[in-house]
């Protein structure tokens, strides 16, 4: 068999693999969205949930999901970025560094319920934050950091060394090179990492059951004072997210329209993740252009 033929066979195989994946994924997404569509309505998206009668919505849960996502990202992104920079740019390649790397990697295999329980004992009970968005955000930060750090490190590693040499040759310090040349150049890949971890945060349930809680008290959407208990911005209130709500309905829900709500909420969740991805891409693209003058 000559190399041309094997080349064609290999490439054809890759086409088959890629299209299989597309078919599987499209079927999955189609299934979720189509089974959820009938439940969607403005009322469903904005009204509060009902415990045991039909006609409840997911308004508060949807808001909680986004608020928790943003809080978690505000806490975890700077830490992950700093750690990623240190691991890739400053750390010496010795046993200590590889120990830290290994520890971070094995942490990501811990089931999220363990992270949730750890967060419960530390934040909810020990620090006295109670069942609150803040506790949830810290727990999610734990859960999020390994993957985010790792992907930021990979993104920085993918920037060619010539860029570093260029920066240093211009008389910039190492830190300035990293900040003004390497990070902007790695931005699109970093963004992919952020989006992936945002997706995981959005869909996470088990870590939140014991930290952010699984009840969604009524909110007053005209009250934006973060110190009031019924204000949507209050970080100390218990907050059930969309993913937790789906889990709760499927496990113990006794409302007659549980199935419709759960598939509707799943569809909303997928659409929200899509919207978030598009937004992040758009912002990232603009930022990339401004920072790299490209």
């Amino acid at each position: 068999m000559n190399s041309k033929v094997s080349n064609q066979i290999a490439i054809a195989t890759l086409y088959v693999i890629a299209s299989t994946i597309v078919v599987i994924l499209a079927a999955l997404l189609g299934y979720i969205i189509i089974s959820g569509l009938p439940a969607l309505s403005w009322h469903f998206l904005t009204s509060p949930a009902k415990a045991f009668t039909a006609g409840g919505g997911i308004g508060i849960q949807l808001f909680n999901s986004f608020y928790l996502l943003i809080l978690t990202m505000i806490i975890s992104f700077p830490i992950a970025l700093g750690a990623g920079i240190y691991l890739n740019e400053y750390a010496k390649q010795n046993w200590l560094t590889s120990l830290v790397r290994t520890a971070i990697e094995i942490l990501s295999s811990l089931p999220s319920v363990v992270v949730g329980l750890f967060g419960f004992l530390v934040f909810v009970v020990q620090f006295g934050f109670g069942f609150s968005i803040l506790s949830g955000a810290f727990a999610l930060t734990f859960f999020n950091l390994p993957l985010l750090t790792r992907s930021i490190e990979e993104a920085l590693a993918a920037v060619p060394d010539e860029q570093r040499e260029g920066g240093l040759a211009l008389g910039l310090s190492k830190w300035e090179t990293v900040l003004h040349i390497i990070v902007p150049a790695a931005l699109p890949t970093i963004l992919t990492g952020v989006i992936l971890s945002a997706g995981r945060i959005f869909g996470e349930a088990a870590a939140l059951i014991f930290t952010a809680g699984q009840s969604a008290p009524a909110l007053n959407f005209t009250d934006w004072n973060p110190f009031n208990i019924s204000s949507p911005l209050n970080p100390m209130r218990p907050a059930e997210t969309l993913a937790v709500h789906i889990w709760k309905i499927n496990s113990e829900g006794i409302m007659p329209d549980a199935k419709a709500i759960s598939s509707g909420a799943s569809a909303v969740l997928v659409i929200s993740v899509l919207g978030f991805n598009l937004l992040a891409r758009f912002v990232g693209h603009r930022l990339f252009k401004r920072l790299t003058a490209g």
Partner: protein
Amino acid sequence: MRKKRWIECLLVVGLIVLGGWAYQTRQVNKANMTITAVGSTALQPLVEAAGEDYSTHHLGTFINVQGGGSGTGLSQVQEGAVDIGNADIFAEEQKGIKANRLQDHRVAVVGITPIVNQSVGVHQLTTTQLINIFTGKVRNWSQVGGNNQKIVILNRAQGSGTRTTFERFGLKNHRSIAAQEQDSSGMVRQIVSTTPGAISYVGFSYVDKSVQAVSLNGVAPTNQNVASNEWPIWSYEHMYTSKTPQPLAQRFIKYVQSRQIQNSLVRRLVYISMADMNVTRDGQGRVHKVEASHE
């Protein structure tokens, strides 16, 4: 560059001022009266709904209700981390709990019934048959008068209140063989309704048209039969507090036990009201008749 610094400074100052102003104008009266109840997911909807009701009648109080399982509820109330621990079982039945340190408040009764997949063709069983099924002595539905189909046993997780009650009063303290386990009633119903030959057990409120509830020794699983103890598989829903509960926790539990809640919410959620019970049962399983009716 200079200008940018200025704008940043202004922003920070502005945020601080805004924060201070928000702190000054916060509603002070609303923040201080909060109690937390944690535990059984089965009891959560009732307590949550009652809590919302209570808050609307008593402005300035907030009842924070969370799930997490009976074990979590009992251990957290024992450690004083929460005010109320919701549980489906007696504290005495839970390993690792010092029951004498806790105060039991029973708020409702829940009946538990075996359910089977619609296709097995069995509507009633005897206790012996039920024990034989769950201990693996009978493996085909035709041996207990059903269709020729393999029996698929589905249990709740070990230590769950529903399973503890079912094995104690349904299986007469026989232990089920190792089989599939699920940790929620909703999942159990879903799997029983779609798996041919499946048998499991759920609280009455989860029984619907997708599964077949089974009569035991000719007694149907109804609230009336639970009230007279003719249907023996039932349990109390407990709200445990410490021996010296917080006043608000005590008032709230009184409210849940009041006739108003017992007649409305408790019935709507297909629990059995405490007032309807003709018998009482203690942690050792001893049953006593209630002589005087509540009305």
